[in-house]
C-alpha cells in the first residue's frame, strides 16, 4: 500500500517522458491527433452492442501508432489492464442478464450476453489504448494548445497548463508528506480520517501560498492577464491529408464488413 502513491506518480512520469520523444507521430500537430482520436473513439463506440468482428480491424490504428511512435507496447497494455477490472465489473452483468443463445461455436451455444461482454471489453481495449497513445505521443502542453486553438476558452487552457506544471511539484510534495505519515504509523494507526484531514489541509495551505508566490513571479515579468506563447507547431498540409485519410479509413472500417469478407473469401478458396 505504501508504494501505491509512488507507483502512480511514476507512471505519470513515464507517459510524460514518452510524450517528449521525437518521431513522425510525435511531430504531428496536436490538433490532428486530438481530432483523430476523438473520431476513432466515436466510430468504435458507434457499433451496436453485439458487434465483435467489425471492431477487430480497428486494432490497426493502435498497432500503427505503437510502431511508428516507438511506444513500448507492454507498458500501455499493462495500464489498460489495470483499468479494466472496472470494465469487466460492468460488462460481466451482460452474460448474467442476457442468457439467450445467439450463436453456436463448435457445438457450444454462446449467449448474447457473452458476446456483448466481449464486445465491451474490445471497446475498452480500443478506446483506452487510443487515449494512452494520444498522451504518449503528444506532450500535454501540446494538447492544451490544441484545445485552445480548437476553441476552448483561454482561461481554461491556461490554468490547465498550470495544473500540468505543478502536478509534478505538488504530487511530490504530497508523496513526501505521505511518506512522513507512513513512517510514523504502525499497523494502520495514524492513517485515519483525522490525520488525512490535516494532511490535506496543510497541503492546501501550502498550495495557496505557492499560488501567491507564482502570481508574484508572473507579475514581476509583466503579466497582464493573458498567457502568451511562441508558436512552434504548425498545422501543415500533411496534417490535413492525414486527418482526411484517417476519417476515410475509419468510415470504411465502419461500413464494410471486412472480417466477414476475408472469412468468406478464405472459405471459398478452400
Amino acid at each position, binding site marked *: *500500500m505504501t508504494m501505491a502513491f509512488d507507483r502512480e506518480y511514476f*507512471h505519470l512520469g513515464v507517459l510524460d517522458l514518452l510524450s517528449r520523444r521525437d518521431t513522425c507521430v510525435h511531430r504531428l500537430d496536436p490538433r490532428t491527433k486530438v481530432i483523430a*482520436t476523438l473520431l476513432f*473513439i*466515436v466510430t468504435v*463506440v458507434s457499433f*451496436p*452492442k*453485439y*458487434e465483435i*468482428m*467489425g471492431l477487430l480491424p480497428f*486494432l*490497426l490504428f493502435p498497432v500503427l501508432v*505503437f*510502431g*511508428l511512435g516507438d511506444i513500448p507496447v507492454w507498458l500501455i497494455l499493462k495500464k489498460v489492464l489495470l*483499468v479494466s477490472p472496472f470494465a469487466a465489473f*460492468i460488462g460481466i452483468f451482460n452474460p448474467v*442478464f*442476457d*442468457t439467450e443463445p*445467439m450463436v453456436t461455436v463448435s457445438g457450444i451455444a454462446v449467449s*448474447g450476453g457473452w*458476446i*456483448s461482454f466481449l*464486445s465491451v471489453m474490445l471497446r475498452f481495449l480500443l*478506446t*483506452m489504448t487510443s*487515449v494512452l497513445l*494520444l498522451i504518449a505521443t503528444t506532450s500535454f502542453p501540446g*494538447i492544451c494548445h490544441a484545445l485552445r486553438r480548437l476553441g476552448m*476558452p483561454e482561461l*481554461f487552457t*491556461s*490554468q*490547465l497548463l*498550470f*495544473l500540468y506544471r*505543478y*502536478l509534478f511539484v505538488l*504530487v511530490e510534495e504530497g508523496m513526501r508528506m505521505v511518506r512522513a505519515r507512513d513512517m510514523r504509523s504502525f499497523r494502520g494507526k495514524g*492513517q*485515519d*480520517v483525522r*490525520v*488525512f*484531514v490535516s494532511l*490535506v*489541509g496543510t*497541503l*492546501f*495551505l501550502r498550495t*495557496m501560498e505557492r*499560488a501567491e508566490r507564482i502570481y508574484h513571479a508572473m507579475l514581476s515579468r509583466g503579466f497582464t492577464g493573458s498567457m502568451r506563447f511562441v508558436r512552434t507547431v504548425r498545422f501543415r498540409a500533411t496534417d490535413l491529408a492525414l486527418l482526411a485519410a484517417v476519417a476515410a479509413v475509419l468510415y470504411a472500417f*465502419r461500413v464494410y*464488413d471486412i*472480417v466477414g469478407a476475408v472469412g*468468406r473469401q478464405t*472459405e471459398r478458396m478452400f
Partner: protein
Amino acid sequence: MHMADALLSPAVGTTMLAGTLGTVAYCSRKLRENVDEKMIPVMGVTGAFLFAAQMINFTIPGTGSSGHLGGGMLLAVLLGPHAAFLVMASVLTVQALFFADGGLLALGSNVWNLGVYPCFIAYPLIYRPLTRNDGSSGKITIASIVGVVTGLQLGAFSVVLQTVLSGRSELPFVTFLLMMLPIHLAIGLVEGFVTAGVIGYVKAARPEILESVEQSRPLPARVRVKRVAIVFLGVAIVAGGTLSWFASSNPDGLEWSIEKVMGKQELSKQEGRVASVLESVQEKTALLPDYDFRKPAGAQEGAEAGEPESSWPAGKPGRSASGIVGSFLVLGAVLCIGFVVKALRRKQEG
C-alpha cells in the same frame, strides 16, 4: 465512479461532451468578468493539489478499507463554484489522459457527473444556505455531508442513466440504480465528513481564504430563490420525465428488473419497446444519431429497432465459422503490420 467510453453510445457521449463544453465556456466567461487574473495560477495549482490529494489514501473508520477524496464540493467551497468546476474539469482531463480513467469521449459525462452537481447544485442550493448565517463547525459538517451526498447521488444517478441510455450494458436501470446509490451514499458520508474537516482546517488557519470566496462571489439573496426554483424545476422535469418514461415502458420497474434477473420470459418484446423508445429519443436529442449506418450485404433491414441482430452471424454455423476464420486472419494481418513497422523503424535508426 468514472463513466467509460466503452459503455457509451455516441449519442449520449457527445451530448454530455457538448453539455460539459458549454459549462466550461460559461464558467470561463463568468470568471473573466468578475475575478482577477490571479485566479489563473490559483486554479492551476489547486488542480494539482486536488490531484495530489486524491492520491493520498486514508482508512475508513470501522471498515479498514481505504478511501480517497473526490473533491468537487471542497473546491466549490474553497474557490467558488465557477472556478471549482473548471478545476474539476481539468483534473478529470488529466486523469483521463494519463490514467485512462474513463476515456476521452466519456470525459464529458465524467465532468458533468462529478463537476456540475457538486458545484452548481449541491454548493449553491445546499451548502451555502445551510451555512449562511454562521459558519460554525457543526453547520459546516452537516452542510458538507448533505451537500456531498446529494452531489454524489445525482452523479451516480447520472452514471446509471447514461449507461442505460447508451444501451451497451444489460444492467437494468433499477438494478443498477440499487447497486449504485447505496454505495455512493456510503462514499458520500465519508467524503462529506472529510470535506468538512478540511474546510474547518483551512478556516482555522487562514479564514481569509474562505471569506474572500464568499465576498467575491456572493449569491444575491433575491435572485437566488428564483434561480433555485428554476434549477429544481429543471431537475424535477428531467428526473420525472425519465422515471415516468421508464414506468410507462415497464409498469413495474422493480418487477421488470427481477424478471430480467430470473430469466427473460416474454420480455424480448418489451425490451424491443424500450430500445426503440431509446433510439427515437436519441435520434431526436442527439447531435450524432446512433443508428447503425452499416448496410452490409444480406444485412437486416429495420436494424435500428433493437440491435440484437449484430453482424455476428447468428445461428448459421457455416457463417460463424467464416467469421472466426476472418477474425483470426485480420488479427494476424494487423499484428504483422505492427511487426513490420517496428522492424522498419529499428532499421532506420540502426
